[in-house]
């Protein structure tokens, strides 16, 4: 592939160029779905250069928050502001040029090839009619190579495993060249090596002046890869932000007991990073 030779290793991560990205602010946001208040008064921001982890028990509104940021939902009150503009006031194309979403998984009814699916990430930058440019192809190939799945480029996406599909979705988001990555449990189906690969990519993405908001249930990996953690409140106060801060401040045994209702052990590993595991007493108790 001639186009491939024109791209260097860092191209996939710099599809948006090297300009610093905008800040995204959630300003006193409340969301109601089907008559239920899912999020209430959520207020925090993600600034360029940082990876923010969104944690909390199931059903607390984490995915809803990501859908709100990508303007798939409208807030009942408050607003989400990206670079000074409410996301609801932006066209789909404008927003897609700045924000890329990585869902947990996807199903396809048609046998698109992996390469085709990843190149679709260039859609916000392409005209309505036309073919992909050499640059588009080079970006797609580079993203696939960075994630170690270039050999899958011509495979049908319907033949992939859950973990491979997740890597493909991540590659598509990188190719989209956004300023902000929204990731919904991006490592849920991945083996340990690929978890580290993806989290490293997310960190490199943020270090290049852009930002990432990551939903995760793996608290130890979140502690290692996120600059700040947003803990969403469960129970009667569900949908509110319980605490925002550095992982070591937020992922305490007390906060986690309140959030998840179980005892946890939190300690520093040999490398100094925070480790969070359920207490053995939780297994005995059940």
């Amino acid at each position: 592939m001639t186009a491939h030779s024109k791209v260097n290793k860092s191209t996939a991560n710099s599809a948006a160029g090297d300009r610093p990205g905008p800040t995204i602010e959630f300003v006193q946001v409340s969301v109601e779905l089907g008559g239920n208040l899912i999020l209430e008064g959520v207020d925090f921001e993600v600034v360029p250069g940082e990876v923010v982890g969104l944690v909390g028990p199931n059903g607390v509104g984490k995915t809803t928050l990501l859908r709100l940021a990508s303007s798939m939902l409208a807030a009942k009150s408050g607003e989400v502001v990206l670079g000074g503009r409410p996301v609801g006031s932006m066209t789909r194309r404008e927003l897609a040029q700045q924000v890329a979403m990585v869902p947990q998984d996807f199903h396809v009814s048609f046998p698109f090839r992996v390469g085709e699916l990843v190149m679709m990430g260039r859609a916000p930058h392409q005209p309505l009619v036309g073919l992909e440019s050499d640059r588009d192809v080079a970006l797609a190939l580079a993203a696939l190579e960075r994630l170690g799945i270039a050999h899958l480029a011509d495979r049908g996406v319907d033949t992939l495993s859950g973990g491979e599909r997740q890597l493909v979705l991540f590659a598509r988001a990188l190719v989209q060249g956004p300023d902000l990555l929204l990731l919904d449990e991006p490592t849920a189906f991945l083996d340990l090596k690929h978890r580290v690969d993806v989290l490293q990519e997310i960190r490199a993405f943020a270090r290049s002046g852009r930002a990432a908001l990551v939903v995760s249930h793996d608290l130890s990996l979140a502690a290692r890869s996120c600059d700040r953690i947003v803990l969403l409140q469960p129970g009667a106060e569900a949908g509110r932000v319980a605490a925002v801060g550095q992982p070591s401040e937020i992922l305490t045994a007390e906060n986690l007991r309140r959030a998840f209702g179980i005892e946890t052990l939190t300690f520093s590993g040999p490398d100094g990073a925070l480790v969070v595991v359920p207490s053995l007493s939780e297994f005995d108790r059940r």
Partner: protein
Amino acid sequence: MIRLSLSRMIFVLGTLSFGLVLICLIALATGPSNIGFGAVVDVANSFLRGSADTAAGDASFDIVLRVRLPRLILGLLVGAALATAGVIFQALLRNPLADPYVLGVSGGAALAGIVVLALGGLLGISTSFVPIAAFGGGLLATALLYWVSGGPGRSGPTGLLLTGVVFNAFASAGIVFLASIAGFFDGSRIFLWLIGHLSAVEIDAAGLVAVSVAIGFGVACLLSRSLNLIALGDETAAQLGIPVDAHRRWLLLSTSLMVGAAVAVSGLIGFVGLIVPHALRLVIGSDHRLLIPAAALSGAGFLVLSDTLARTILDGRELPVGAVTALIGGPLFIFLLRRAQSKGPLS
């Protein structure tokens, strides 16, 4: 990495166009009358030499020009319309089993067309409004389909298909009922509407069908990149910058226009929109920028070939082309349904 390049598009569409020309020649040279390629070449020569007028009156010339050619033109237009409509419905509904006939959209168009045919005289509406009524009927059936199924991805393949079965049963009953009470119950004519056929008699409407197909095809080509993304899901398409609702509205309008026009001149020809896209995806992949024009060319060729078979398979008698497409499409449909069910609900 395989990519859609201009040279690949030219190769695929060029090959299909060449095949279509061959099919057209076979269709013109085949029929109950013993008029072969020689007569077709003579007719073409007459036109090229400008001596068509002097050749008029010659039996071979008349059969090729006034019987086979009009039917060929209708076959090309109807086949292109139905196959393109099938591709669009499949992408919009994210269901590879979708087809204007199976979904009942053709049935809605046919019912509306029959309303004008049967009651037009009483209400003072000209039969030239049949295609417009069929367009409205197709559009209404599409809207009902969306409403009943709860939109794409919300009901599995069986839910959509059941809706189509009910639409078709209702439309068939309505067609027979209306034709009966209007007093022009001509059993064979109604039968032909319900099974789908091509007839040189309908050539007067070819201009209108051509315009409808051109509009529908044009919109589909313009929005073919959007179709790629919508086929992945509305939310994914929106997150990749596509104004999904607006594009879907345009695609549904243009598809209903094509289906309405096709049904108005040929009745309920089924499964073209199922067979052609399915076969093409196996060979050229799922990219709608190539799939849409390829489906139009292949659908045209497939229907003309089916009609040629229908005209000649029974010595001296003629089958409606809808019977041939149903004989091919029925088993394929059951195979695809089984496969879809074994994979679980499509979403």
